[in-house]
């Protein structure tokens, strides 16, 4: 189990390469990568603010909850903060389990909770101004599934 909160980029391919594949009882690995989108084509950068201390605690609590709910051989969460360019990796989640359903569900659970319960805030900085990304009702609705 590993959680990293960092400003540095990470290498998604390298993180995926060996994840969860050591044990005899791992049959399924799911990974999720979040990337800075540039829908308008005018994005200069995305700035991600976070709450040092609380961030790590909140993610550790989600990871523990996932371990309680599903039988998981391994979990990896990486989330960046600071200034990111369009196309750069923001964060990733990886889960390893015996069966695909547990691996998928745990990854989606972690994503839904990271989205609206980990203290990160995104600001989109474009040529014509900066705007904080607003949380949506769907973010809260997604949590009701769990």
């Amino acid at each position, binding site marked *: 189990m590993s959680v990293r909160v960092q400003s540095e980029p990470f290498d998604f391919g390298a993180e995926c390469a060996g994840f969860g594949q050591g044990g005899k009882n791992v049959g399924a690995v799911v990974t999720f990568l*979040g990337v800075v989108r540039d829908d308008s084509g005018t994005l200069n950068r995305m700035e*991600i*603010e976070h709450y040092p201390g609380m961030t790590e*605690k909140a993610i550790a609590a989600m990871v523990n909850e996932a371990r309680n709910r599903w039988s998981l051989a391994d979990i990896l969460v990486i989330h960046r903060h600071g200034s990111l360019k369009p196309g750069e990796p923001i964060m990733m989640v990886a889960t390893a389990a015996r069966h695909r359903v547990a691996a998928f569900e745990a990854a989606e659970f972690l994503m839904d909770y990271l989205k609206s*319960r980990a*203290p*990160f*805030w995104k600001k989109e900085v474009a040529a014509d101004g900066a705007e*904080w990304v607003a*949380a949506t009702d769907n973010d809260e609705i997604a949590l009701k599934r769990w």
Partner: protein
Amino acid sequence: MIDILYFAWVRERIGLPKERLETDAATVAALVEELKSREDRYAVAFADTSALRVALDQELSDFSASLVGVREVAFFPPMTGG
């Protein structure tokens, strides 16, 4: 003494990330009222607390919660990680 932290647009509206305060407020809501009465920028930032979240000692809480024993209060908009 209590540490008060502000994040994202709450930080921008109030104009600082952190301050230390002596307060007798018994609840988060009372602390918010005290802050709002200090200056306009607080009144603007806290105009609609339904758009805000609060954490007490780095745990999500709510505005009716007691401040007894609390060392760190943080105000911020809904999170947008992931």
